[in-house]
């Protein structure tokens, strides 16, 4: 086990707060980008990448955010870590409102919140050894005595299955090994929350399982919380405790893994789940899977009313005009649809 990752930060306070306050609470996060004018003297347009996203994440839990590419799920991850500045909304970590803190405090907080990302090849600096890069987090946050950091970095590499790789350069590693190194670099500072942004999307399928299992093992051993961003539903089914389904910058349905995969309510969720080949014939209790028509609209010109309505076979006049609120259902899930019960 790894000393750095196991370190407890004021353990009693953390335990006490865990019962009442979720580790991560996100309220109404919005990100709007200015876009180029369509014509020279035209109206200045904007692109809403994330349109009001709220969720909570408990300690030790995995929340998966799923959706098609371009729906804004990666932006959510970057907003949570403040790698992109939100246009509006709040991020609370362990009860602390991070939208109000300065850069120095953020740098300090980064030790608790880490990122594992998609393109592991570009995620590693080509000019530094793997060991130096894993060690870097310890240097930045002044964790441990300088003399011990090398050993600590090597122990972390050992824990991700890269023992003896400390003196290699990234280009001498395979894709799966690079991703393990990225994970080691993120975990060495002992974070409590890890945002995994498509952590295995760039890897071969055979290697994906290894890396996902590694992530699961590390979660169990270190009590990590994962915000797991992926477009791969079979993967999400494997790792997630809860699942948030995202479409055009907003969550359309949030529920437990069972609720989302076995009994999806929102038409978009049903279309998404229906598109995945499943081994066991577990179909929605609502009969046939939903088929969406048409293309995803451009975020530059989002549709009025419900964002799904142009493609939804069940859309009514109300869907065209009024944007549905995200409402909590009796079974605890949240659905943003006017007719979650009435659709066939």
């Amino acid at each position, binding site marked *: 086990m790894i000393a750095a990752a196991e370190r407890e930060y004021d353990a009693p306070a953390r335990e006490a707060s865990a019962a009442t306050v979720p580790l991560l609470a996100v309220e109404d996060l919005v990100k709007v980008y200015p876009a180029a004018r369509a014509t020279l003297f035209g109206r200045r347009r904007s692109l809403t990448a994330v349109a009001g996203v709220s969720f909570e994440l408990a300690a030790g839990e995995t929340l998966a955010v799923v959706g098609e590419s371009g729906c804004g799920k990666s932006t959510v991850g970057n907003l949570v870590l403040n790698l992109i500045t939100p246009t509006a909304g709040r991020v609370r970590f362990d009860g602390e409102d991070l939208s109000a803190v300065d850069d120095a405090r953020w740098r300090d907080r980064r030790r608790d919140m880490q990122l594992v990302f998609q393109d592991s090849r*570009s995620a590693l600096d080509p000019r530094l050894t793997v060991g130096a890069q894993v060690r870097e987090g310890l240097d930045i946050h002044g964790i441990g005595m300088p003399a011990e950091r090398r050993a600590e970095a090597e122990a972390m590499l050992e824990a991700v299955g890269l023992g003896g790789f400390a003196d290699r350069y990234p280009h001498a*590693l395979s894709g799966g090994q690079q991703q393990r190194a990225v994970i080691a670099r993120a975990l060495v500072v002992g974070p409590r929350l890890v945002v995994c942004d498509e952590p295995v999307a760039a890897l071969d399928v055979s290697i994906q399982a290894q890396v996902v299992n590694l992530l699961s093992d590390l979660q169990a051993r270190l009590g990590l919380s994962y915000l797991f961003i992926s477009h791969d539903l079979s993967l999400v089914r494997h790792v997630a405790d809860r699942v948030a389904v995202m479409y055009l910058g907003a969550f359309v349905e949030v529920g437990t893994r069972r609720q989302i995969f076995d009994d999806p309510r929102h038409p978009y969720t049903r279309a998404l789940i229906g598109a995945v080949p499943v081994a066991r014939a577990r179909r929605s209790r609502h009969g046939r899977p939903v088929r969406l028509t048409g293309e995803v609209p451009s975020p530059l010109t989002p549709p009025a009313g419900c964002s799904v309505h142009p493609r939804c076979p069940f859309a009514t006049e109300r869907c065209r005009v009024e944007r549905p609120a995200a409402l909590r259902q009796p079974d605890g899930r949240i659905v943003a649809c006017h007719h979650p019960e009435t659709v066939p």
Partner: protein
Amino acid sequence: MADTPIQAPRRFRPALRLPAGIPASVAVCMGILLLVCTVAVFARVLAPFAYEDTDLLYRLRPPFWMARAIDSHPLGTDKIGRDVLSRLLVATQVSIALALLGTLIGAVLGTALGVLAAHRGGWVDELVMTAVDWQAAMPFLIIALAVLAFFGNDFLLFLALMALFGWETYARLVRGMVLSAREQGYALAVRSLGARPGRLYLRHILPNVMGPLIVQLTLNFPQTILLEASLSFLGLGIQPPLTSLGQMLGEGRDYLLTAWWLAVIPGAVIFLTTLSMSIVGDWLRSRLDPTQR
């Protein structure tokens, strides 16, 4: 580890590794540069005479290949009997040292401003890039002449001019490279680890953009030599009793009819040095960037 090791991605190879296949012309140029640099370093040791010693009985002597008898001045003497070889060695030292120092200061200055512009963005970026455009638009020789006219000639000012020359090429280059390097995953990763900007730029981004920067240095260096030589040739640069290649050439042009070698010898040294540097620089650039032929 069941992962099969994959072929190392080419683009992450360290950019400057001298391969075996150096063309002969480039090798010759490297040899010339090595010789010039050695001369520049050991000029005062190698010089047979003190470069400023005059001997009025021994004026305008020809170099060895034109002299009838063996002479103690291999390259002859100038208008007041100073040993041309000794002057040439010291002049090379002064010219190379000045150009090298100026190039390096300019590179550091330009790099710093380029990083600053890319990092801060907004009005800082606008300001730096306006200065870049402005300096790029104005012929530097005119700027240098104006500065010398306004402030008078002074060695430190002259050095500052050498440093100011070309900074904008580094600033533009570095700004562009930093902007794209910052989009690389490792930059985001280092930031998300909680690193300060200084660490990100010095430890990660700058080492990754060093290759093109060094090429730019090799292209800028000969231009700086030419700038120094031009100003000194016009009599507005290095002032006597100190000498430089341009100054020797400027003095020698008055004796073209009687002692042409006084101008041709330093001129040839300038030409060979800048030519070699340009060829080596071009070669480096083509090695670094195969699309640019």
